[in-house]
């Protein structure tokens, strides 16, 4: 898999800016937003330039109770091949429920929801990850999500949950430091304890994103500037390991190209600072 460098989430709204930004080593695309065989022209041009493109899935729901949908897995596999991606990523989350296992109507969340950190949920997640790994042509990395909710009766910390997942499946980790900050504010969880518990070697890359705090809750909006506390979690991570890749995510309320460049520079600054110590 190897080195990725510093990258940015590719979105159609900022395609021109990304093409002009200096030193963008790689990009990540939301897998569900692309049609295999009909990639957007600006993305084709990046590929032609040799920019690494990593597909990032949001709808498999590997933390859900059901086996992952084969069609969704095949689509992700085909996209990875078309992009010649070194890996693909998804989330540790559930996105739908109901259906045959409960004999009730299917419900779609439309977003990522936290799985309970229980033995049951870990067993199911591991089984689902193994199914996904059999279909995908490249390594899979899974991301820790941001949450407002805490399940009652949890049996493991998030770090322990992920460490066991890695141990049992060999899956890689996509560590989102903004989500660690979110869960610090919203659930009182310590990012440093998480980073102590997860195997550093398994980290494939890192997400960085902006958000805001309101009424004591952190909202991981991806529509606000990256704040110091999030960069501090990145620094904490970099003090333990040099991540193979770091990626800035911005989904809405896009700044000018200069604003994006400044955020990438701030991220690189944290990486360099960690190397110096």
């Amino acid at each position, binding site marked *: 898999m190897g080195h990725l460098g510093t990258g940015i989430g590719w979105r159609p709204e900022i395609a021109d800016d990304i093409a002009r930004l200096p030193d963008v080593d790689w990009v990540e695309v939301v897998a569900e937003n692309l049609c295999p065989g009909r990639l957007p022209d600006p993305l084709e041009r990046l590929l032609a330039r040799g920019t690494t493109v990593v597909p990032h899935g949001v709808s498999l729901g590997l933390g859900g109770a059901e086996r992952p949908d084969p069609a969704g897995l095949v689509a992700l596999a085909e996209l990875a091949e078309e992009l010649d991606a070194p890996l693909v990523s998804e989330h540790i989350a559930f996105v739908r*429920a109901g259906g045959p296992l409960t004999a009730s109507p299917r419900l779609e969340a439309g977003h990522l929801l936290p799985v309970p950190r229980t033995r049951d949920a870990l067993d199911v997640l591991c089984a689902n990850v193994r199914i996904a790994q059999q279909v995908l042509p490249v390594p899979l990395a899974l991301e820790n999500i941001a949450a407002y909710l805490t399940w009652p009766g949890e049996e493991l910390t998030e770090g322990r949950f992920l460490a066991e997942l890695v141990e049992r499946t060999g899956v890689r980790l996509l560590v989102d430091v903004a989500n660690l900050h979110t869960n610090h504010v919203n659930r009182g969880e310590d990012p440093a304890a998480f980073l102590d518990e997860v195997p550093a070697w398994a980290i494939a890359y890192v997400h960085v994103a902006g958000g805001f705090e309101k009424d004591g809750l952190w909202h991981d909006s991806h529509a606000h500037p990256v704040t110091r506390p999030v960069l501090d979690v990145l620094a904490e991570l970099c003090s333990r390991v040099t991540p193979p890749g770091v990626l800035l995510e911005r989904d809405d309320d896009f700044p000018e190209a200069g604003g994006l460049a400044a955020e990438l520079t701030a991220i690189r600054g944290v990486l360099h600072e960690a190397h110096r110590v």
Partner: protein
Amino acid sequence: MSEPPRRVPHGEEPDIDAARRRLAHAQTELLSALVAGGPTPDGFDPGRLLVQRRALVAKRADVVSKVAPEPADILAGDFRDLFFDYARTRPMTDSYRRDATDFVRHLLDAGRPRDAERRELLTAWWEERTTPRPAPGRTPVRLGRLVSALRTSRAAR
């Protein structure tokens, strides 16, 4: 509750089916509370459930207004409240496009919004969207003109 025995796929632990069923019930209970107006499951903080519920419906409204911008344009400042009201007990089960046409149908059946001009535009949009047509994906010329005219007149106010 008894289920027919199922063959365990190669490589899966034999008791995983029981774990899947337990997890399915827990996740369905939570998701029903979040998107289908179901009761709050035991042990969850009701305040946080409310925050999560609002976040999900806000995201849904946002995506619906992106894949089908016309109803949001027509309803303008009333879109969010009307959509939130609609979505509170109506989970999404299909695509966002289908969600948009279902939402508009729900409004029209309830006689909302009150003003006839906007109801007429929504009716025209709903009919265009739910009638098979030769060139899918394009906003028909007549409706497009109506919406832009409405936008202009609102901006001029």
